[in-house]
């Protein structure tokens, strides 16, 4: 049984068996990333497929096999960004002014939320919001990096994040969740 680093070295030699093992090792994690960045599962599959091809084509350039986990994750995110650019449509201008924060006191149902339900909330976000939210909140990029990756300014990234969060809060509120502190 090869460890992760040996697997990477074998994949760098285009060993088909190693490629299969590598795929099986990362397929679920990377599909999870793809699902976050896309609206539909079909789009996620497109990105997923393209991402894996790029990974195997460029794995020889991975100098430090120990960092393969972060590297493949980054590859998928960049593929998702490319996909976003390729399918870029002028997003509808949302009337953010009409969004009014709710102060209703719903019971704390946070513990009842599953990852799939949270994912579905993200999926419903507009593409730009979803990209920024994923990059900033989940994957840890700062606004400067996000602005560079998405080809937007840092301020645009910030405002889109803010609006994305407001939309999510609104959706959560509809589910009866108004407090996010875990008890």
């Amino acid at each position, binding site marked *: 049984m090869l460890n992760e680093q040996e697997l990477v070295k074998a994949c760098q030699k285009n060993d088909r068996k190693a490629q299969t093992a590598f795929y099986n090792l990362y397929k679920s994690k990377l599909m999870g990333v793809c699902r*976050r960045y896309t609206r539909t599962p079909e789009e996620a599959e497109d990105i997923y497929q393209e991402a894996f091809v790029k990974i195997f084509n*460029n794995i020889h350039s991975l100098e430090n096999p120990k960092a393969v986990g972060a590297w493949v994750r980054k590859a998928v995110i960049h593929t998702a960004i490319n996909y976003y650019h390729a399918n870029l449509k002028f997003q509808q201008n949302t009337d953010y002014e009409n969004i009014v924060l709710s102060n209703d006191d719903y019971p704390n149902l946070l513990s009842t939320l599953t990852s799939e339900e949270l994912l579905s909330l993200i999926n419903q976000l507009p593409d730009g919001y979803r990209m920024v939210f994923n990059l900033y909140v*989940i994957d840890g990029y700062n606004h400067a990096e996000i602005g560079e990756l998405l080809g937007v300014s840092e301020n645009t990234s910030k405002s889109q994040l803010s609006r994305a969060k407001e939309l999510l809060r609104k959706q959560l509120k509809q589910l009866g969740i108004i407090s996010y502190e875990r008890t």
Partner: protein
Amino acid sequence: MSALDKDKDPFEDLFRDNLFDFESEPNDKLWKAIEPQLPANPARKIPYWQFAAVAVLLLLTGIGVYLLPSKMNNNSEAKIEQPVEKFANSQKEAEKSIEENKHSNVETKKSDNIAKDLPTEDISTLSSKNIAKNPNDAPNSNELAEESVGISSKINTAKLGNISKKEAITVEKEAIVSYKKQGVLKAKKGNRTDTGEVPPITPTDNHQSELSSAGDQQGNAIYNNTQKYSFNKSNTKGRSAVFSDRTNNTINDNGVSTNNQLSEVAGSRFKMLSALDSKEYHPFTNHFRTPKIRYRGPKPTVYFKESKPLEWYVSAMPLINYYTITANGNDANYVHQIAVNDDADRLGFYTQAGLVFTLSDRFKLRTGLTFTKTNHSFSYQVRTDSLVVQSPDNTGVDVSFAEIKKVYSQSAYYLGTKVELQYTFLRGESLSHYVNVGVEGAYKINGSNQFNGFANIAYGITRQIGDNAYLFIEPTFSYSLNQQSDSNSLLLIKPNKIGFNIGINFKLR
């Protein structure tokens, strides 16, 4: 990534904690779609031992090709020696039988008297009447002598076995006719110089009477015998005796020298006729009827045996690579802006050593091991199908395809083996000119394993620089038979070579 450093936000933590390690099982069909798009290993892995086996095989083939012709020559020589030896033995046996026959004839002559075959009075007549003294005999004698010599040579040829028995018999018949002719001529002219000449065929009564008549007319005729003389194998001894006695008589008479010569020729002719006529001759002729045996003449004395030199060689060649480049893009990647990074990267080094087998006067087989060091470096751009959206001034959006600059560089070491056929087309006093054509297999021994095949062609000039040393210079062109590529397989490269090979041949034997 400063997100983790920012202030804690329970809302963000909710999503981060739940979704950072979120996993989702993909559909199995996705792998089936991905797998065909994965880069395959471009180089077929050939273990080192297989490579070594090929090299050894080539060397053995060369040695075999070199040694086989000389071995075959030895075998054929041995085969030729056997029939020659047999022939020599047969010839000796035949000569021995001839000698025995001769001795038996002589003994017969001694023991049996001439009188057994000829009447006593004939002998006395022959001895008493002696040879004719007529000077007109000379021309006739010469003519007869010439004819006799001609026939004698034919018989000699027959003795040597160069003609068949049938031909020998024909010659014998000619001889008989000649004898008869001699007798008739001499009898007609009545100028008998050879008193002992008896026609070797059975004279008819007419002939006999003619001879007798002529003898009576000249008064010194020899052929007075009236007894029939039958020429057959049963009375060979008698005939021999007659001829022998005739010769003796001639010598005793101290006659004209021409007659003596004629007698000698006739005597030798008779011996040969006896040999052909004897039964002991048959095995010798039968031996030559065997169709399987071919006489190729005696083995010539060889003072200098032709040798096929075996040489070893070593050479070095600075080389420069030139490339056949094929862009291998696809729908998602457009390869363009390909450039070879010159500088010193195209220079390489090639060295080889091996054996040279001389196949013939013009052809040689050269095989050996090679080591190659080459460098190459290419830069190119790939335009992907990904769009890049930029808003430099926040007022508009620039959309373009993503361009990726790539560099494919490699420093490779190859270990290989080669086999070449060398043809010398011009051999001068000091310089020889030749062409080399061959193939080479080279295995990359650093980095990713690759096998490359090359077709080599070279024009060479060689000159002797020592007793066993030859310097050669070969401008060489090496064409790559397969392509190399980087891991992206976006560029397909044929690393052809041009070099100036300089080396030395040493004769081993």
